């Protein structure tokens, strides 16, 4: 009897045990935190959101801040007196020892994040059942953006891996030669140009356009010295259908103010906005409520103590503007728009306003004992990214759009292409149009090809100084050399290897198929 009771108890317990165990559904738990990949890339909205992810890329720290050290400070326009020697060594005096430098590799990484986003769209959107016109436009935008990111890689690092499909961990691509990277950009921009709209409605202005694609296509050819192809591409903007879309704004400074973004001179802009609750700029993790979707460069360029002054302008840039007066005998109005310095106001330091205070009252004139002594009295700050017109300080989230490609740049590049093709005369009106907006007289006729190019170099400095194109210009013109040390001492340490950045060591450690750039 007792034994029976035990057996019953035992059986019941065993049954209970088995019952719990057999319930394998118990182990199927849905992820409530985010949709899985199997539920995505199904609708037109998914496609649109995929495109938005690509555009988000230029708010990441590489493109919203660090690239400007490479494109502006490293060139002969800029230099650094930062107390942080890393910036001085790497972006001013060509003393690069760390191939994994955060400031540099974040640019690399963010460009490839953008490319991965574009590749996902290009791989998945074609299968989505949706309006074909819109689909084509979206694919065009993705191609444009992918080309755009590769263009940066080609200009900065030159020989880089090219990935055109959704990434898988087993991708160990070889190095692609710089010319072939440009060729990929060319392909993307061409295909984008054929499908992108000429313009957008108010709700969508700022997205990639046909004009932007032709502009970038032209820039690609310019860097490859394929001038007639470049001219063909620019032609759509300068003499073709785009001629009626774009124009120069009357007031040059409007190109750098938040209130006049996406104007008729704008060919392609990084779209920035202020998030007052921002505290990070990693748009792939962290809390989107605190995501910075602005640029953080103003505090890095602003004069101390408003900002860090990690980069500033060389004085010779100012002199370029003073070489010539306007037709009515005034100073080139672009000078004050380009720099904050002791004479941003022609009357001098007592009148030149630096964030609500005069240059003098901020004590910049007093140099004794200043660790950046040599620079101070001569200090010139890049102004174009700053918000000094509207604010007395700078924060990490500036909503001011970065006008990456302006119509005046296109006009000058078109002229340069024509001149390079031997059609110097044909190039004149495009340069004069840019000069006229600044109030300058037309160029004297009869300049030969060499003299015209020399003149163009002056025009580009005065029109585009501090906008991030100087390094490319110097590369294209073959002007990178220690000769530049006459106006930028940093170049005394320049050697040819610095024409390209070193491929990050990290990447080569992981993928030794990658070849390091020459002499690094």
């Amino acid at each position, binding site marked *: 009897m007792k034994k029976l009771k035990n057996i019953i108890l035992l059986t019941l317990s065993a049954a209970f045990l088995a019952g719990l165990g057999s319930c394998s559904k*118990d182990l199927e738990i849905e*992820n409530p935190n985010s949709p899985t990949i199997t539920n995505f890339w199904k609708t037109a909205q*998914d496609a649109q959101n995929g495109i*938005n*992810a690509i555009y988000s890329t230029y708010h990441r720290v590489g493109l919203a801040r660090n690239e400007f050290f490479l494109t502006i400070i490293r060139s002969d326009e800029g230099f650094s007196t930062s107390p942080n020697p890393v910036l001085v060594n790497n972006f001013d005096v060509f003393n690069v020892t760390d191939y994994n430098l955060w400031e540099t590799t974040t640019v690399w990484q963010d460009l490839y994040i953008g490319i991965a986003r574009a590749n996902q769209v290009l791989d998945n959107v074609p299968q989505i059942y949706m309006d074909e016109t819109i689909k084509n436009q979206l694919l065009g935008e993705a191609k444009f953006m992918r080309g755009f990111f590769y263009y940066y890689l080609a200009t900065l690092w030159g020989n880089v891996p090219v990935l055109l499909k959704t990434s898988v961990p087993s991708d160990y691509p070889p190095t692609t030669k710089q010319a072939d990277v440009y060729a990929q950009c060319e392909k993307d921009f061409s295909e984008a140009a054929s499908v992108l709209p000429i313009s957008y409605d108010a709700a969508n202005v700022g997205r990639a356009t046909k004009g932007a694609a032709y502009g970038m296509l032209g820039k690609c050819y310019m860097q490859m010295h394929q001038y007639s192809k470049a001219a063909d591409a620019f032609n759509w903007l300068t003499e073709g259908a785009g001629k009626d879309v774009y124009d120069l704004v009357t007031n040059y400074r409007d190109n750098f103010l938040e209130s006049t973004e996406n104007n008729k001179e704008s060919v392609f802009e990084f779209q920035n906005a202020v998030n007052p609750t921002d505290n990070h700029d990693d748009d792939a993790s962290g809390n989107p409520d605190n995501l910075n*979707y602005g640029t953080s460069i103003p505090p890095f360029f602003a004069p101390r103590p408003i900002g860090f002054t990690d980069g500033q302008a060389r004085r010779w840039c100012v002199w370029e503007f003073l070489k010539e007066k306007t037709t009515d005998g005034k100073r080139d109005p672009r000078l004050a728009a380009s720099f904050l310095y002791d004479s941003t106001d022609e009357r001098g330091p007592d009148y030149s306003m630096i964030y609500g205070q005069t240059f003098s009252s901020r004590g910049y004139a007093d140099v004794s004992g200043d660790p950046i002594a040599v620079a101070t009295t001569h200090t010139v700050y890049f102004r174009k990214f700053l918000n000094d017109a509207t604010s007395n300080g700078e924060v990490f989230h500036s909503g001011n759009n970065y006008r990456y490609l302006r119509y005046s740049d296109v006009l000058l590049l078109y002229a340069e292409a024509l001149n390079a093709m031997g059609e110097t005369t044909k190039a004149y009106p495009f340069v004069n149009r840019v000069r006229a907006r600044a109030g300058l007289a037309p160029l004297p006729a009869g300049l030969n090809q060499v003299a015209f190019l020399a003149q163009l170099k002056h025009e580009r400095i005065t029109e585009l100084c501090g906008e991030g194109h100087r390094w490319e210009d110097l590369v294209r013109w073959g002007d990178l050399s220690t000769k530049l040390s006459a106006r930028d001492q940093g170049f005394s340490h320049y050697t040819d290897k610095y024409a390209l950045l070193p491929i990050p060591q990290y990447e080569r450690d992981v993928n030794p198929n990658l070849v390091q750039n020459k002499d690094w």
Partner: protein
Amino acid sequence: MNNHFYQNYGRCEQYRPHLFKWRGPLTNVKNSLPFARILLFIVAILIFNLTKAQSPVEVSGKVKDSYGLPLNGVSVQVKRSNNQGNQTKVLGTLTDENGAFNISVHAGDSVVFSFVGFKNYRLVYQGQQNLEITLTPIGSLQDSVVVIGYQTVLKKDLTGATGVVNMENATKISAGTVAEGIQGLVPGVTVRNGGAPGQNSVIEIRGVGSFQNASPLYVIDGMLSDANVTINPDDIASVQILKDASAAAIYGSRAGNGVVIITTKKGHAGEPLVSLSGKYGFQQLPKTWEVMNAASFLKTAQQQYANSGVAMPKDIANQLQNNTINTDWQKAVYRTSAYQDYTLGISGGSPSATYYVAGSYYGNQGTVVGNNFTRASLRINTEVHKGRVTFGENLMLTDNNNDYPGGGVNVFYNSSQMLPIIQVKSDDYKDPIQYPSNPGGWGIGSSNNPTYANNYLAAAALDKVSNEYGKLVGNAYLQIKLAKWLTYKFNAGLEVSYDYSQEIRDTGIWRYTNQPPETFVSEERSRFTNLLLENTFNFDHHFGKHYINGVVGFSRTQQEREYTGAARNLLQDLNGTLYTTIGSAIGSPSATGGINNKWRSHGWLGRVNYNYADRYLLTLTGRIDQDSRFGPEYRTGYFPSAAAAWRISKEDFFKSNTVNDLKIRGSYGQLGFSDALTPWQYVGFINSSTRAIYGTDQKPQLGQYQSIITNPDLHWEKRNQLDIGTDITLLDNRLNLTVDWYNSTSKDVLLIVPLPQYLGSSGSPFVNTGSIRNTGIEFSAAYHNHDRAFKWDLAGNFTTIKNKVLSVGNQGADANGNKVNYLQPANFVRSQVGHPMASWYVIKTDGIFQSTDEVNNYKNKDGKIIQPNAKPGDIRFVDLNGDGQINDDDRTFAGSPWPTLQAGLQFNGSYHNFSINMQWVGVFGNKIYDDVRRPLDSYQLVNFRSDINPWTPENTNTNDPRLAIDNGNDPSVSANNMAQTDRWLENGSYARLRNLEIGYNFQTDFLSKMKIHNARLFVSGQNLLTITKYKGLDPDVANNNLGMRGMDSGFWPSSRIYSVGIHMEF
């Protein structure tokens, strides 16, 4: 559980050594006798045996516990030998509530006293009139019962490698966590202390076999729950550490890093016993950096600027002329602070029910201002028996508060770097031009006095974080004795934790060029639940010389954590009152979190122990686990193990007067480890964090894509472990030795494969691809001598762990087709196949250039000058590959962060009422990367160590390079300071006097009037002495990143604690 072990124990009696070799009665008899008298005593026994008195005697007596409390219900059995020498029971009785008993006994009879939770006590009756018996609780050494997971066994019958912590030593340590208390006590167990209040210690068992997580699994009274700082160590009765596969396999997929089994204190039948222990102490940092005062700093800085031909910053120049500021920053931030630990407990019960209730308070302010940790806890353990049914519960309620500064300012870096010519705070620093956004006037660098060091005190004042952890953890169980040999147990465990964290950011900055955020308050609330349901059957049977016992069962775990976070900026500050709730803030609100992670696992478990004649022991253990954290194809795992032992000392051929017990054992098995993963990592998910801006309104537009590449093939890490060991007891059971050799090979180790950045993945997936081997020898010895008035015991252990990376998975191939076989979290550290994990990988230095000629003559074989920018006084680096330049290709292996030898030594002595405890720990053979010294010795905009000896043309016999400013004009200065060189590596060996305690036991007579059974007063000093060459604050470094284990990135040093305490029972 208790019943079960009791059976075991009774059975063992028959295998006991002869009475005269048995230490039990001799040491337990009141007023234990000196050696000579023991001899006499033995002689007397022999005479009595010869004379064999035949008439029975009525004897009365009393049974007490070691505190002198009467024990009610103790079984007293009289056994008599017949002519064949077989003992039979002739009489049995129980003690009454006063512990008293009466028996009728013959001389020569054995009298056995037995009681649950205590060691059996046996004596041969020799005609004594009054028997005063003191039973000792199940305590140490070979007789002790060891919890091995769902079962208990005698320590002597262990087949697997199980470390048993000597709690007497562990409780001497002033420790916030269980782990902290056991540093140096158990071989094979590595503990690294965290010195911050409320910081958890790092504990690792048999080395690190994972790149992600090396923490063991904790089991507290059968509940699988973390024993972090929220658990009061004073509540703990015993700690066992399951080290090898056989021991740990019952926990299957979560046991890969070893298992720590904690049993909390239980009540014993008897009068209520109140125990009070209190400790109050002062703590301080044992060491601070020796940095310069203002005068030396100014002189050195002047030299530095002069050397570089750079104008001095204005403030340095001014202070040189008239030095008005001399701040000792370390003195300003470090403090001597209070350390308190109190526990009040009451326990008792009857044979049918027992209880233990204890309340405790622990307070640790830490050695740095702005920190505080407090813990209040309540424990209630009860157990009720009725017939075949036992019901019990173990419950702990705890509330913890932890305050510290936010803002991520590491005080150990910054307080040593900060310039002595900056004041902590002054109205001078309120000038909005020189010091924008600094309304508090905190001392920071400026363009006139550049330094990027943070003012820690400003951070502590402006950014306050407080955390509160409220936690309930416990389990309840129902045990039914189904048959004499079979017990069913249902165990339900629950852990619920409510965590709250608040950060309040006031206006202002703590560093030169800091960008001040808006004021804000951010709050995070999280809820954690951990639910355990278990059904187990324990069986236990012996027939003839065969003895078999074991357990089978099913276990289900569910864990869930939910976070919600919110923040709002712009706090209102009205007339100096700061309003700090989200409701009172007036700026933009944001949600900072809101996720839910949940997983479940099912486990079928079983273990069989077989014992033949106490000579041959075999243990087979297995577990099948299923876990929701893996994809359906990888959900099930099998974790088998086997162990065998041979007690040679029981063999007939074994005859030794020296060796009392000798057992050799071996085990092999496989464990899993799954706790490095959060749920759902096996399936790709869509990131919704990106935002595009376009349109004239520039409004953010939702962007979505798959931001992280995923790996659908995720599964558990595996550990294959082989263990061979021996347990030896010698010299009348006075000396216990245990030696183990093991080989633990981790396979399928989760790695974040370092994806190239060009893949554009924001983060990398885990891949089961690594393999790490740890091999080592563990040795422990314990000797005790309690025969004389001066009683002492000495225990020592050492551990060697050899860590070797066997695989880091497929990292592609290099240009020559060679496999890339390393991981590299920073450019000076590598986990490479064939080398220990996280080995240093650096450019070697080779002294200092003494002259321009030396620079120019330092060429490679092609005649290329290797360091053309160098000047005399700069560091010479080894051009390892001979390519004529110094770069990352010249790096090489330069030591590892893992000690070659770890040791512990504990000494306890007592003389009359005085006692002494001394504990030493030693760690030898490791290298530490001193990242706190790196910025100091780089000389750039920081204070200097006071003992630097920079090179000058006149001072050439030094390893410190010349003083110079790194402003871009002097490229070799930044070369001197490169992070990836051996300049920053230091010998991490140390020996430390971990604890020294002197105690005094008050006389029972004196206190008995006050009904105090026992009172002990002690003073102790912790971390009084550390012998090391390490220059940093504490060589006891454990970087949270396992891949950079030996990097001292401002690790909080262990405190030196002087304390006085009392322990009383009444």
